[in-house]
């Protein structure tokens, strides 16, 4: 067992997850350093999404624990995990389709400011100028400001994903988890998203990205863990991983 590094913000410690007799995750030990972008790659069925679900509390690990910023996340409710500073972008966008784009982006700011519950039913949304302005800035950043009064449900798929990202960014999370943030996006949208994610990187936000698109991974990641068959088979900088024969065999298939 490695001693915890000073800079480690998320520690997935010796996590196992079995479904029935199936080992979805075995011996996962991940240390994610503060301010870094850590990519988790691997072929389909490698256990990437399971791992993410264990981190955010959707699944309970069979063994092991997830420690974030000195707190054990294992056994906590999703909203509690968010409140300690972990935000998540889903593979298929989870947004509020019936609310306006602006409201979608504003809502997370309330959770950040007011906590998990606040009985503020006599104050008016119109008086929340600060949050509103912040949300509008955010929408300008991601290029959705002109759609701010539309139902979020009527956005294109790519716009929905970017809006979901904006929702997470509104909370200035300590850790941002991204589940294939560019899946299903056009090349153009993908590039815009990469630029956006690079910008966040400059702000020093820690990110964990699960991604298929190697272009995205190699443009963003500081460190890559390769998952196959529920185990981490390699870990290192993009260069190291790219040149690792084990990885090429298991995942890249020598295509590179």
């Amino acid at each position, binding site marked *: 067992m490695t001693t915890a590094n000073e800079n480690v913000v998320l520690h997935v410690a010796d996590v196992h997850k079995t479904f029935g007799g199936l080992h979805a995750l075995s011996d996962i030990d991940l240390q994610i350093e503060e301010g870094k972008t850590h990519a988790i790659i691997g072929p389909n069925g490698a256990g990437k999404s399971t791992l993410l679900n264990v981190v955010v509390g959707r699944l309970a690990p069979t063994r092991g624990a997830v420690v974030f910023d000195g707190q054990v996340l294992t056994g906590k409710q999703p909203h509690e995990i968010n409140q300690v500073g972990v935000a998540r972008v889903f593979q298929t966008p*989870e947004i509020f389709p019936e609310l306006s784009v602006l409201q979608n982006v504003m*809502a*997370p700011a309330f959770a950040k400011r007011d906590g998990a519950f606040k009985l503020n039913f006599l104050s008016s949304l*119109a008086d929340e100028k600060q949050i509103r302005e912040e949300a509008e800035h955010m929408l300008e950043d991601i290029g959705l400001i002109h759609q701010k009064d539309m139902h979020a449900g009527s956005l294109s798929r790519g716009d929905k994903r970017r809006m979901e990202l904006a929702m997470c960014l509104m*909370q200035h999370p300590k850790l941002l988890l991204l589940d294939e943030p560019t899946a299903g996006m056009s090349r153009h949208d993908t590039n815009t998203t990469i630029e956006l994610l690079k910008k966040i990187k400059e702000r020093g936000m820690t990110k964990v990205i699960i991604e298929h698109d190697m272009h995205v991974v190699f443009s963003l990641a500081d460190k890559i863990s390769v998952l196959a068959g529920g185990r981490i088979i390699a870990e290192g900088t993009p260069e190291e991983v790219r040149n690792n024969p084990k990885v090429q065999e298991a995942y890249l298939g020598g295509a590179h």
Partner: protein
Amino acid sequence: MNLQGIFSMSRKDLTTLVIFSIVVLALPIWLQPFGAAYPDLMQRFAIFGILAIGFNILFGLTGYLSFGHAAFLGVGSYTAVWTFKLFSMNPIPALFFAVIMSGLFAFIIGFVSLRRSGIYFSILTLAFAQMSYNLAYSVLTPITNGETGLQLESSDPRIIDSMFVGEQAGLPVSNFFGLEMSGIPGFYFCAIFLIIGFFITQRIFASPFGMMLRGIKSNQTRMNYTGFNTRPYTLTAFVISGMYAGLAGGLMAVTDPLAGAERMQWTASGEIVLMTILGGVGTLLGPIVGAWLIKYFENIFSSFNENVLHNLFGFLPDGVESVVVEITSMFVGEGWHLTLGLVFVLVVTFLPGGIMEGYRRITAMFTGGGGDGKKANADDKQTQPAE
């Protein structure tokens, strides 16, 4: 339609509130041509309006379909009548206790029922309401007076009143510092509460809290992963909604000091759902429109009988006339509920957004809109009820 959405609503809200208040306070005037300007009916307009907007806070905003709301109505009525019996005929303490008691009831029932969602929530609320109804008819008879219903008696203690007023002959009438709560004053008393209730609903709709409730209806998973604990939000909505129902029940007792268990039956809960759907779920005004229409047509349709129909269709040839009368008689008088059921089926099938949705479609047709359809407008927005 205002594209700024919710943010410039404050002024719009104020205008709505002023117009709404005028419409409500002027009911006795503008209902005259409709032949509906008598106090008893107008009291029902106000009371069922309160009930429907309260129900809408729960169903319209969070999407949780309660099939047991009538239980809170009943609790409100019983509490109010007991307050009359024990303390005073002044409606204020009666309403106060009615709202508190129903809120307490809603808290307990909501605490348990909200652990589940979707149809399970509906069935849990239904089960609780049926339990209350059955108990009110059986073991709770000392409190509810069973089938006869809870009534005032001249032997009631009325502790507070007896300190100020001497013995009176006959049964007392609820009175607001001397103003008797029947007839037109009774209506205005209820109307004020309707306006206050409407105002609070407006505030809830325009508040961050209201937005969170809509968020729960729209995507509960996202709410959780955004850091919101949804249970206290839904529970608060449930309790507020129950308190509105309690207030309505209390007002029923104020205008007519009698409380019976049939007010708690699940068909009564169904009627509340019906009003809200007919008018437009999730809209501010829809539930009130629904409640008024149902109460108005209930009044008209139930008063029809064969004689009225024969007069109405007297111009037709005899054979045709009797057939027409026979058919229409199915839908009026005793058959009013058949009409109601049919209308309800049609509305849910073709216009799930209710009358407000229909109104919006028609205005969109005339203003050549349609581009509007894509704009989110938090106030008028119709969303599908959550599962």
